């Protein structure tokens, strides 16, 4: 099928259908749509968290409960403590309190688990989901297992939403707003950092992205969506009890996100729809088949999840999207955007990097033994040596991906060993990786724009509400400029994963340059390049050197190295065996022995 419909027309049709739905549909279906909207709002948070960020939470139902119970207590209690009395009686104030409260809880929970490997968060949320559920059920002030009743309806400018078909519009307005802001967020500086969390954390840190913060951001956003859903739920139902906030519902929310397509914003809606309708239908059908009552639909959901994760990990959205042929919107660059300011480069000839006696041991293996080297501004230093000599390890010590066992690394005169790659990147050191680290499904432009992350400062909120466009245009322009500079302009909008390996390496150089560094660390940049491409790369590096940049490169291609670099350091078995001008090193007997083997 040829894509014929524009995004705008499909969206418009969808909105029109939503608008008339409560007017023409029987109440049962309006109620169903209300629940789908509420669930989709929670699932949307999980799409961001799980599908995009590679984290997950089984405790979203508990956040829904926080939102619901906060508003239930605040709008029904007659004897609020004095410090909270101002928030009593009004659903809208209760929403505000609920969001602040939820954000606080999510922040605390996140601080506990987000610095650990990814599976601690879901385990933590299971424990938290269960604890909060028991707490709802036991606390007297929350009504125990019977819950709280008499919750007032939400009023908008004095108009009370008492009926399901009235609150319908509010629920879907919340959902559409959440979809809109999430989409905006993902297409921004912060969004690129978030999208790098899945499979690109080491790279993102090396580009100055605070990945712990990005993880926290999406966890809190997901919790806030859940809280808003709970608030709406409480005022739709007009009573709350603990049942819908238990762990099994938290698991169901995750199923919705995964079934719909965990990486897709609209997948949340699809997943919520499919699961809600299937549940309705199965709860009717299965007890009749099995001849006993019970929640047998979970057997079906469990199986469905397993099959989906085995066979179609992207969920149902891609299948669904194929049915509706929507034209992809083409990205454009704003050529008029002002270029980003640049940091002043150090004076040519100044020592910018100095490694002193750096030693790194892995157990009994000494990967780097008392390695020293210096790089000056406006100079290219090559670090060469046979395979396994410890060159990449040395790179990791310098760039802060790893911490030396002993020794010192000075960058721009300041000690940086053990400071972490993010801090070092901020000071003006940028690197590429021996095993290319890029985000294969993102475009070349977006990949390179991650490099410019540190040169912008617009955060989550401006991104969600499109108040970051001026800065975004400048960042993308800078990325485009670097892409043109390294000669990948024709691939600007292609997926990075579709490039040949050599081109991916070049992409990494563009990304490093987008960070506006004064020192560039290149790990085997010429590997996989054709002769012409190598010449072009050498030309680019000479030009950068001419501009005063310091470059440290690890390389195997001797022709490439010897014609290009100013000085060479040779490593073998973790130690420096020679240092000097290319011609000197080529004559050095120790180097010849290391490369060619000794004469017996």
């Amino acid at each position, binding site marked *: 099928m040829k894509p014929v419909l524009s995004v705008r027309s499909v969206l418009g049709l969808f909105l029109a259908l939503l608008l008339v739905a409560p007017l023409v549909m029987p109440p049962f279906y309006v109620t169903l749509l209300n629940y789908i909207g509420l669930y989709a709002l929670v699932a949307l948070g999980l799409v961001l968290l799980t599908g995009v960020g590679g984290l997950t939470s089984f405790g979203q139902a508990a956040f829904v409960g926080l939102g619901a119970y906060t508003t239930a207590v605040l709008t029904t209690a007659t004897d609020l403590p004095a410090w909270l009395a101002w928030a009593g009686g009004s659903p809208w104030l209760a929403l505000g309190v609920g969001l602040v409260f939820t954000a606080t809880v999510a922040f605390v929970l996140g601080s*506990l688990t987000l*610095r650990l490997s990814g599976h601690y968060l879901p*385990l*933590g949320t299971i424990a938290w989901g269960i604890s909060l559920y028991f707490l709802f059920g036991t606390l007297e002030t929350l009504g125990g297992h019977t819950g709280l009743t008499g919750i007032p309806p939400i009023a908008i400018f004095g108009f009370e939403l008492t009926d399901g078909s009235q609150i319908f519009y509010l629920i879907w307005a919340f959902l559409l707003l959440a979809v809109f802001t999430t989409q905006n967020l993902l297409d921004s500086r912060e969004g690129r950092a978030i999208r790098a969390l899945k499979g690109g954390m080491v790279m993102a840190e090396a580009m100055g992205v605070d990945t712990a913060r990005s993880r926290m951001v999406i966890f809190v956003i997901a919790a806030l969506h859940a809280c808003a859903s709970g608030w709406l739920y409480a005022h739709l139902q007009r009573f709350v009890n603990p049942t819908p906030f238990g762990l099994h519902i938290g698991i169901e929310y*995750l199923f919705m996100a995964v079934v719909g397509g965990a990486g897709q914003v609209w997948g949340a809606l699809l997943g919520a729809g499919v699961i809600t309708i299937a549940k309705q239908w199965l709860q009717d059908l299965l007890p009749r088949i099995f001849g006993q009552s019970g929640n047998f639909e979970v057997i079906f959901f469990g199986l469905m999840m397993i099959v989906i994760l085995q066979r179609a*990990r992207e969920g149902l959205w891609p299948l669904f999207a194929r049915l509706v042929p929507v034209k992809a919107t083409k990205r454009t660059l704003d050529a008029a955007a002002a270029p980003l300011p640049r940091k002043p480069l150090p004076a040519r000839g100044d020592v910018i990097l100095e490694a002193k006696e750096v030693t790194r041991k892995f157990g009994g293996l000494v990967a780097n033994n008392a390695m020293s080297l210096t790089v000056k501004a406006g100079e290219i230093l090559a670090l060469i040596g046979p395979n396994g000599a410890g060159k990449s390890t040395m790179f990791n010590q310098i760039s802060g991906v790893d911490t030396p066992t002993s020794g010192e690394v000075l960058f721009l005169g300041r000690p940086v060993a053990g400071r972490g790659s993010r801090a070092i990147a901020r000071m003006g050191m940028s690197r590429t990786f021996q095993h290319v680290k890029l985000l294969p499904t993102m475009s070349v432009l977006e990949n390179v724009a991650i490099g410019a992350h540190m040169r912008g400062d617009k955060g989550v909120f401006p991104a969600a509400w499109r108040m970051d466009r001026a800065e975004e245009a400048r960042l993308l322009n800078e990325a485009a400029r670097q892409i043109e500079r390294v000669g990948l302009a024709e691939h600007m909008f292609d997926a990075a994963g579709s490039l040949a390996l050599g081109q991916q390496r070049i992409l990494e150089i563009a990304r490093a340059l987008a960070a506006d560094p004064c020192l560039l660390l290149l790990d085997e940049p010429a590997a996989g390049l054709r002769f012409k491409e190598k010449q072009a790369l050498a030309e680019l590096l000479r030009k950068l050197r001419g501009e005063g940049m310091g470059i440290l490169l690890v390389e195997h291609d001797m022709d490439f190295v010897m014609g290009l670099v100013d000085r060479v350091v040779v490593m073998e078995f973790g130690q420096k065996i020679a240092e000097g001008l290319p011609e000197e090193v080529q004559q050095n007997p120790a180097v010849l022995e290391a490369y060619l083997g000794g004469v017996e």
Partner: protein
Amino acid sequence: MDFQIALLLAQDGITNGAIYALLALALVLVFAVTRVIFIPQGEFVAYGALTLVMIQAGTVPATLWLLLGAGVLAAAVDARGALASGQKGRLAGVLAWNVGYPVVLAALLYLLPLATLALPLQVLLALLVVVPMGPLMYRLIYQPVAAAPVLILLIISVAVHVGMVGLGLLFFGAEGSRTPPFSEARFELGPMMVNGQTIWVIAASIVLIVALYQFFGRSIYGKALRATAMNRNGARLMGISPALAGRLTFLLAALIGALSGVLIAPITTIYYDTGFLIGLKGFVAAIVGGLASYPIAAAGAVLVGLLEAFSSFWASAYKEVIVFTLIIPVLLWRSFTSHHVEEEE
């Protein structure tokens, strides 16, 4: 609280702690070898206990049908694989293990007078039904996605848990059950009375832990599993099949789970969904050990058991809340001792 009660609670706590320790060991093992966070561990506890209940009631346990179904599926998958790779010789073995075994077991269960068998035989039959579900589960559910990220495996685990709880309700009904104790004996130990069943639980746990220790330290299969846990690719290059390691691990996990269920069935009423909470407490213990250390996990398990017992005395309504909140200081401590940003697998 007087000393007497304290002793009673301690006894309770240690008994439960011993079970949590077994489960924690299984969880650490499964995670180390296969990277699967094995949420359905607890379901094996419930399946083991309730299968025994059905056998003791003289009915053919409904879990048999699950075993049979999974066996037929696994046979189909493996037979297709064998035919596709031209190894017709493997077909007989595939069928015998996956279909022959459950059929023979079904015949036994139909022919034997289940209700009047001696207790050890009943327990053996229950284990024979439930334990093979472990390797079958690995074969059908995890093996096709063995290389998936930890997160995907975790979500699959949760799906398996949810499905097994639903099936448990179908098999066993919503009523809870207990089994008669292994021994009615009571011992006077200083100032306290010790139940025979308590001794059974603790002794069996210790025996099982020692047996596992020997298995991992001495047998070639145990060493193969340890090698896989340490370095999956390295082990594979040395000829250790990751699929075999996975199935063996799941066999052990299912055995530990089902046996734990059989052991505690006389002490606690087991419902179809009881296993989850029990398994989660094993998780709390495993997290104390960082999902990596066996001895710390076992110590954590005893701590969880004691905490649970004493909080059920002081604040019984908040028992679960207190136990699950225990992981907060543990996570906090772990969080402060980890530094570098690493890629998720």
